[in-house]
């Protein structure tokens, strides 16, 4: 198959990514990819809307009163979907000023809003890559955004799909193992956003193992002192945060690989030099 020649950028990649941050799908509308933009908007904003419905918009009421402030929610995963975060802050904020009973589906709801924020980050990656033509099927590469998405869904999954199986397996064993160890030490008390609002956000970067375990063992009733609760919580959260580094590794390798394919360079993607591709 003939290698594609480097093409002019479809638009400014940074503008495309920023527009997607402001409005899911916005970057693709800017690039003229209406269908992708529309699908992105419906999926990401639909998930946020579903989360707001399930939680009655009470997600930020999990925050203790002393932590509430204009920028307090900005450290939550919802930040990935800026328009959603702003909408929730403006419409629901921190509630009515007095304690209310949370709906039964509140935990599922906040999971949806948080996942919407994370999904939009991968849509931003896609917009940025699409502007640079890095996800063209003719390159024969696993699309960058998809590889990064799988790296989030299962730690090490992105490496595995890129053909770096040994590395993927090590990442999976390390990160999932540490998350499970942390959850065991804290007896599942880490799996509760209401209890640990910010740590929970870090932990969620661990993907499906975190989401799955929370669905089965989340929000346990704690009736005794858990000796290593804080150590377990820190470990589980660190495992999620370290997965961000793994996702960045997947992104870097995929980007180099795509750029090499575009320039027709036969060097393996493991070489650390990134070739210049002129527009």
């Amino acid at each position: 198959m003939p290698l594609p020649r480097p093409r002019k950028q479809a638009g400014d990649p940074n503008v495309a990514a920023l527009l997607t941050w402001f409005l899911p799908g916005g970057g693709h509308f800017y690039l003229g990819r209406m269908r992708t933009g529309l699908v992105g908007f419906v999926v990401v904003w639909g998930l946020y809307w579903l989360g707001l419905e399930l939680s009655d918009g009470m997600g930020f009421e999990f925050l203790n009163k002393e932590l509430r402030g204009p920028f307090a929610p900005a450290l939550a995963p919802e930040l990935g979907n800026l328009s959603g975060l702003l909408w929730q802050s403006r419409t629901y904020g921190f509630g009515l000023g007095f304690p209310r009973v949370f709906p039964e589906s509140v935990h599922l709801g906040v999971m949806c809003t948080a996942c919407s924020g994370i999904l939009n980050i991968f849509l931003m990656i896609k917009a940025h890559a699409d502007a640079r033509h890095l996800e063209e099927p003719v390159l024969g590469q696993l699309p960058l955004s998809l590889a990064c998405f799988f790296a989030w869904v299962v730690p090490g999954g992105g490496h595995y799909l890129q053909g770096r199986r040994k590395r993927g397996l090590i990442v999976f064993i390390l990160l999932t193992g540490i998350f499970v160890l942390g959850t065991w030490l804290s007896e599942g008390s880490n799996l509760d956003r209401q209890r640990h609002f910010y740590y929970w956000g870090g932990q969620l970067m661990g993907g499906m193992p975190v989401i799955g375990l929370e669905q089965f063992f989340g929000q346990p009733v704690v009736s005794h002192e858990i000796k290593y609760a804080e150590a377990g919580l820190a470990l589980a959260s660190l495992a999620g945060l370290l997965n961000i580094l793994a996702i960045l590794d997947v992104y870097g390798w995929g980007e180099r690989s795509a750029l090499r394919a575009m320039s027709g360079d036969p060097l393996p993607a493991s070489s650390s030099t990134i070739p210049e591709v002129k527009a």
Partner: protein
Amino acid sequence: MSDLLVHLGLLLVISVAIVTLGVFFSYPDDEEAFKRLPRRLGVFLLGCATVVAIMTLIGYTTASLG
């Protein structure tokens, strides 16, 4: 098992994860990454030990409650 041993064990586990992810990010080539791992882990643990030593010293001197 003593608390100190448990915490040292946990520190070792998370140190291995932090340093491994660090070398994976820095070195796309697996062989190069594994070659650098032991030295980086040593430096990381030495750095942690230095911080512990300084904090302990401060705890017994300027920040002593006694």
